[in-house]
């Protein structure tokens, strides 16, 4: 216990007396964490933006006016059996008519022409949402059978097909680039941190040698460095989160304009705070402790 307390004392003493080096290490860690958080934030925003575009894409099937309700139900049952279909809504012909009337309220010419017809000229409409934009192709193929030809007047998806494909390509590319960037960044970050800590320990190489000469055990020498690694990690993660939250509270009003209703990055961070803090803390701690142990290994050999 007394040795542990002394290790703690040495760690705080070393940090204080090597203040420049300590600040530099914390600064580099903060830069790395800020970059990781920025990349993370961009990934979330891209995901949200892509999702909101995806949500707006659907297939609308316009049935002929005399299509039987049972036939429409049959198609509905057929389509809901597809795992790709996440949502399916039917707007019956009365609702379609009402919607048309509402849209043209006050336009006597259009409403008069409708009255002259004497009957509802609209058929039911079916709106289908799938999990991924590329799933729409399967649904379109599935509907491309002769028995449905006489029931479905038009399918509204054809015009969107190109846009969906482009969107899908962009999404895939963003994901690949994001993954590549994250990997590249992790490697660079590891090298920077490893070297920063190695420089810190090399600076204290003579001291490590002296401590060994006066009979300090390996753990008595390693201990303060490991405690320092822990403290550097804790301080840098706390400061990074402070900066991230300050930045988000400033950015959120601007992001609210382009993001789906109710989504705010601050809220995302708040609701995932334990996961985000824990993951980043553990990753940086592993990185700093490993760097310390690797850098010290050479100096502690006899």
């Amino acid at each position, binding site marked *: 216990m*007394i*040795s542990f307390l*002394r290790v703690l004392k040495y760690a705080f*003493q*070393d940090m204080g*007396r*090597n203040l420049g080096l300590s600040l530099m290490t914390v600064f580099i860690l903060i830069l790395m964490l800020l970059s990781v958080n920025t990349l993370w934030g961009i990934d979330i925003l891209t995901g949200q933006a892509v999702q909101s575009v995806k949500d707006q894409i659907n297939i609308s099937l316009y049935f002929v006016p005399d299509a039987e309700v049972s036939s429409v139900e049959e198609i509905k049952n057929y389509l809901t059996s597809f795992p790709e279909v996440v949502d399916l809504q039917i707007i019956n012909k009365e609702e379609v008519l009402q919607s048309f009337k509402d849209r043209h309220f006050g336009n006597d010419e259009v409403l008069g022409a409708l009255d002259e017809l004497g009957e509802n000229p609209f058929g039911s409409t079916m709106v289908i949402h799938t999990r991924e934009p590329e799933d729409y192709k399967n649904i379109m193929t599935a509907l491309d059978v002769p028995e449905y030809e006489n029931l479905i007047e038009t399918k509204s998806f054809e015009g969107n097909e190109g846009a969906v494909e482009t969107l899908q390509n962009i999404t895939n590319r963003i994901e690949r680039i994001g993954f590549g960037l994250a990997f590249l960044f992790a490697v660079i970050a590891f090298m920077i941190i490893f070297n920063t800590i190695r420089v810190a320990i090399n600076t204290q190489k003579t*001291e490590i*040698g*002296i*401590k*060994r*000469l*006066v*009979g*300090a*055990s*390996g753990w*008595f020498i390693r201990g303060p460095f490991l405690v320092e690694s822990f403290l550097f990690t804790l301080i840098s993660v706390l400061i990074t989160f402070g900066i991230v939250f300050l930045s988000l509270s400033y950015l959120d009003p601007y992001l609210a304009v382009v993001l789906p209703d109710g989504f705010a990055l601050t809220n995302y961070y708040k609701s995932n705070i334990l996961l985000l803090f824990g993951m980043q803390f553990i990753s940086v701690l592993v990185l700093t402790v490993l760097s310390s142990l690797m850098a010290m290994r050479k100096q502690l050999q*006899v």
Partner: protein
Amino acid sequence: MIKLHGVSKIYPTPLVALRDLNLHIKSGEFVSIIGQSGSGKTTMARLLIAEERPTKGIVEIGEWDISKINSYDIPFLRRQIGTIFQDFKLLPKKTIYENTAFALEVAGEKSARIKQVVDKVLDIVGLHTKKAHYPWQLSGGEQQRVAIARALVHKPKIMVADEPTGNLDSINTVEIMEILKRINEIGTTVLLFTHNREIVNQLKRRVITLENGEIIMDQEHGKYVL
């Protein structure tokens, strides 16, 4: 107390630093090990504190064969041997008190006892009033006295002094030698590795002469003859 049986140290270069040394140093002796640069003095000193392992032969301290000592036991050995060096080897970011106390702190001594012992040894080397100073605030002679104080805290049975006066002027050299003699008088075996002719001749104690890694002379009351 200290025995070397057929000890050789060969570096991979290949360089033979020590060749088949056989030596017996009795408890309480004051032995000067002399030789020119490259004669193997520092290698021999490093073998005694397990900074190096012999390529061949056995190094015994007391009844302890330290030639194959494992890493875990090395700190325990070093707490029993006082060491001082030409470059003092003080921790620059620690005060004089902290430097001296460090040797006891690593051994897990209680704070109250550390204070008592450190105050006493700093008093012995005459630096009690400068215990809050940092090494860079002291002269070379004073720094070496701190190193001696640190070496003394464990009441070592052996003191290894590797060129302790190499960086000092003549006045400080005399002071350090006086302290080493006093340490020897209280029963500590002192091994002085040096190439300072004057101090060896003034001591009139046992002198072992090394040349090209071999013992070429071992005189009971010797002089510097190289």
